């Protein structure tokens, strides 16, 4: 690659350039950043120039490339970390075992579980199959490098409307193509590595058309005494590069992720999309877990954004003021002719780094050799806090490790958003419940995701107690949280579920984000699991736009407030900014939450399908006039209205009571009320259990608010008559009878809808669009 502005080729037999920053003007600095695709601002270039002035020399191209990676939004969270510090990082909890590449929480006396979610949005918008697949690959590596065996995957996806007609903005792929590619990518990668895909979600909105969101999450289980560090044990250790060869794929992936997508991104950025190789990955998982189990390594970290350039410094620095000497010649390459800077920043997939005491190196190589996985010592840690890289005997990078990996942090300007309120509400004209309920069930944001779910193996590992669908075999309905039993021989369950309401968050970022968290936690309680932790992927717009940053700030404040109040830790998280798309409107602000919970005895888990006729149906929690951004308003043209707020103390009180009732096996089925409100929740319970219900709207209630409001802290519970008295005693005024199960139809508000047609309305839409049949 020919270097341009201010570059002077060094007299060595390979491409190496000295870049003359010391005498550069501001214009020059901007040109260097742009021509080398560094993605660095003028201010950042000035800081870098000052650093090299102190070093008394100009930087090499390798050094600048390295800084471009390390200082990208994606790697150093420069726009978000001060906000996260202010609202979120203060959430402390004794059960957090680690806040490494993945968070780790205590699971039982001997085990911890790892959790993490992250985005793979920009690569997926260009090439959805590879983008989604490598997203899974990356999140799995984050779990493995904690020493944890992956036990579950989640895949929340946001796309434009699948039935979108009309011209697409230039450079944009049709949502149907993107969804189909992303689902195939998740399927071919997740299924091949043998990790069950147990949770996820689809979100469709025009605002995702030019910038889809592909988030991926994973869970793992680790023995507490095998929990790994993501850094070296000290100086004098060997760094062994594991896995795939290094090539040009994925060059500049992080600088790509940290900029807006444009209409030419499609052609420009194919190089930034990596291809996944699950069959290299699968043995890497085995071998990495084995060397960890044998106690041979001191640390393990995956090569994600920035490749070697990020992982080497970070592993050395966190070992306590250590540095590293890297012999770049040792790195196994896919093809000859790569420039040293390309090797240093490449994001080729399926690579990990482990550190070890030198005497263990041979034993480690033996394990990897059995699995036919490449393992190559490439660096040693030193007691000098500098990262030094050599190529063919020439030192091509020599920088202070902390400067290299630190990166700036900004307090960018923001304006607080206006929020939707009751004063400005227009309630739409709506048809009868007999029409509204089936239409809502058919809305793609509610309708069955079976087309995708059944392409994912959600039962591999043989530990899935509750999957993403519940109820009648081969005619199942929607569940709440999924449960896996990750420790063989134990019935202790790990529950996981996604929660997100981007429409609420758009209308009211603070309350919308709290609602997203609460929705996820409600899903856990609905199956009988006690909420334990959350992890989040915050997908927002360009933080350099004050209105976007204001939305982000309010969302993070909501996230912190609810977690602090409920003492729910956030041991890991991810921020994806610059989700603007090519039209400039930006995606819906999307705080994707994965919540995890623990159920002591999975045999007491509760599913959402109505079980039999003749049982009482209770509404747990109170319905409020909170119609803002509800599905009803979106579908029938309402506007304004209050977005549901969350009262954490009320949530705590009611969920404790519900869990008590479940522990006593008093509840036959339970489902969380969220999108579409009570009406949709009850309809879903009918269609998954193939049991009808009669629902009586309470006297004095505003019928349409009562049926369709999406107020938080509400569940529907089915209780047998013999258990009703004890259930009512536990719940007190927090539950009221609203009807009874039975018959072949859902009878409510003067309408009667056959259960079979509820099932049809809910189950068909996605199949009809994507092809095939249930």
């Amino acid at each position, binding site marked *: 690659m020919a270097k341009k502005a201010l570059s002077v080729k060094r007299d060595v037999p390979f491409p190496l350039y000295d870049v003359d920053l010391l005498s550069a003007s501001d214009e020059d600095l901007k040109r260097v950043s742009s021509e080398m695709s560094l993605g660095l601002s003028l201010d950042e270039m000035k800081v870098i120039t000052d650093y090299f002035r102190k070093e008394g020399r100009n930087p090499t191209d390798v050094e600048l490339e390295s800084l471009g990676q390390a200082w990208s939004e994606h790697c150093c969270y420069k726009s978000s970390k001060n906000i996260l510090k202010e609202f979120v990082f203060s959430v402390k909890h004794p059960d957090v075992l680690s806040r490494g590449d993945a968070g780790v929480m205590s699971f039982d006396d001997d085990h911890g579980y790892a959790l993490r979610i992250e985005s793979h949005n920009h690569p997926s918008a260009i090439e959805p199959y590879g983008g989604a697949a490598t997203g899974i690959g990356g999140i799995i590596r984050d779990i493995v490098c904690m020493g944890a065996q992956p036990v579950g995957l989640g895949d929340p996806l946001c796309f434009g409307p699948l039935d979108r007609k009309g011209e697409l903005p230039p450079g944009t792929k049709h949502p149907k193509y993107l969804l189909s590619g992303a689902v195939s990518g998740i*399927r071919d990668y997740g*299924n*091949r*590595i*043998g990790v069950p895909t147990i949770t996820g979600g689809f979100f469709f909105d025009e605002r995702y058309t030019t910038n889809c969101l592909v988030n991926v999450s994973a869970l793992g289980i680790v023995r507490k005494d095998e929990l790994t560090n993501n850094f070296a044990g000290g100086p004098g250790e060997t760094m062994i590069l594991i896995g795939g060869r290094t090539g040009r794929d994925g060059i500049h992936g992080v600088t790509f992720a940290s900029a807006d997508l444009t209409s030419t991104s499609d052609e420009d950025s194919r190089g930034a999309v990596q291809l996944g190789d*699950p*069959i*290299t990955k*699968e*043995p890497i998982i085995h071998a990495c877990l084995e060397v960890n189990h044998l106690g041979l390594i001191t640390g393990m970290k995956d090569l994600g954004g920035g490749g070697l350039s990020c992982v080497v410094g970070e592993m050395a620095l966190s070992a306590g003021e250590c540095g590293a000497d890297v012999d770049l010649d040792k790195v196994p390459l896919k093809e000859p002719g790569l420039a040293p800077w390309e090797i240093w920043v490449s994001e080729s997939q399926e690579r990990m780094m482990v550190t070890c005491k030198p005497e263990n190196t041979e034993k480690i190589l*033996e394990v990897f050799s*059995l*699995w*036919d996985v490449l393992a190559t010592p490439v660096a040693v840690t030193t007691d000098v806090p500098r990262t030094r890289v050599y190529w063919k005997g020439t030192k091509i990078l020599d920088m202070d490790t902390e400067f290299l990996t630190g990166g700036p942090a900004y307090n960018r300007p923001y304006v607080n958003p206006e929020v939707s309120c009751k004063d400005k509400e227009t309630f739409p004209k709506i048809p009868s419940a007999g029409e509204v309920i089936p239409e809502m069930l058919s809305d793609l944001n509610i309708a069955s995701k079976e087309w995708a*779910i*059944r*392409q*994912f*193996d*959600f*039962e*591999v*590992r*043989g*530990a*899935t*107690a*509750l*999957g993403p669908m*519940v*109820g*009648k*075999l*081969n005619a*199942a309905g929607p569940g709440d949280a999924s449960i896996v*039993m990750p420790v*063989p*021989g134990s*019935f202790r369950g790990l529950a996981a579920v996604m929660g997100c309401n981007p429409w609420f968050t758009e209308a009211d970022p603070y309350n919308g984000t709290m609602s997203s968290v609460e929705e996820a936690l409600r899903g856990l309680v609905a199956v009988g699991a006690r909420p334990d932790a959350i992890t989040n992927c915050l997908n927002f717009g360009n933080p350099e736009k004050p209105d976007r940053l204001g939305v982000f700030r309010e969302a993070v404040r909501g996230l912190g407030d609810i977690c602090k109040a409920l003492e729910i830790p956030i041991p890991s998280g991810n921020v994806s900014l610059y989700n603007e798309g090519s039209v400039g409107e930006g995606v819906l602000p999307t705080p994707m939450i994965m919540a995890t919970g623990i159920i002591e005895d*999975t*045999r007491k*888990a*509760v*599913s959402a*399908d109505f*079980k039999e006729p003749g049982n009482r149906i209770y509404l747990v929690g109170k319905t409020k006039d909170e119609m803002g951004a509800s599905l009803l308003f979106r579908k029938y043209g309402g506007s304004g209205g209050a977005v549901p707020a969350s009262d954490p103390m009320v949530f705590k009180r009611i969920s404790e009571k519900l869990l008590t009732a479940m522990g006593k096996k008093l509840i036959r*089925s339970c489902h969380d009320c969220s999108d579409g409100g009570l009406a949709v929740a009850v309809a879903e319970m009918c269609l998954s*259990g193939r049991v009808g219900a009669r629902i009586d709207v309470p006297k004095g209630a505003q019928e349409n608010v009562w049926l369709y409001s999406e107020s938080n802290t509400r569940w529907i519970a089915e209780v047998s008559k013999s258990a009703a008295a004890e259930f009512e005693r536990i719940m007190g005024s927090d539950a009221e009878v609203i009807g009874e199960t039975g018959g072949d139809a859902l009878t409510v508000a003067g309408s009667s809808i056959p259960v079979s047609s509820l099932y049809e309305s809910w189950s068909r839409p996605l199949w009809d669009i994507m092809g*095939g*049949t*249930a």
Partner: protein
Amino acid sequence: MKAEDVKVCVIRIEGTNCEDEMYQAFRMVGASPELVHLKQLAGKAPDHAKRNLEDYDILAFPGGFSAGDYVRAGAIFAARIKSDIGPQLRKFVESEKPVLGVCNGFQTLVELGLLPAFEGVMSETPTAALSTNDSGRFECRPTYLRNDNRGNCIFTSEIKKGKISMFPLAHAEGKLLSADPRFLEKLEENDQVVFRYVGPGGAKAVYPWNPNGSPSDIAGICNPAGNVLGMMPHPERVMTRYTHQDWTSCKGPEEGDGMAVFRSVMKKLTK
């Protein structure tokens, strides 16, 4: 033989990914399973890791995507086994030691020529194929299976003939085909049909109850001697009732339907 003396070789290579649950399933019936990489059996491992197939009493092929299922599901795994340990494997099967293949394991057994094996224990080239599901998609589903074996198969001796079990499955290539016009008759004559897909209540299975379009609804077959069983659905995933997909809505024993397969083979070996 005591149960704990029954040594089970759960064989794996890159991409086999159901070995942990296969291992656990044998543990649950008291056997002593071991996860063994093919290279360990082929002498391509450090001395302390080398293993001999003949030291084991049962050989289990777990599900997954061995070698990525590239070329064809199970084909590469089978080719490597043939070249690395072909004679040992033939001897193992000839001595009527039990061999179980589930999902990708079944595909591998077919590619190895160990099933249907109408002539000899192991044919030179495959005589059957597990072809792409009629839906063209990967299918992760519950299935009802009827035990149609009349007593030949070592893995179903503890399951009443005609009993219907619920096993889940997850695959994209499960349609059992053969070029032999008398394929089904021969399977029947030799008592090689083990499991058939059925609908609820034992009705004839139509999609999705027969999820791949397998002719005559065949889900699993054994060899003529009855010691090699291959099946697409996963008994090792339902060892307790709490992984049955509908366990919250029906009553039943704690034990899952899959347990009977493992109990059957153990009964034969431990009596």
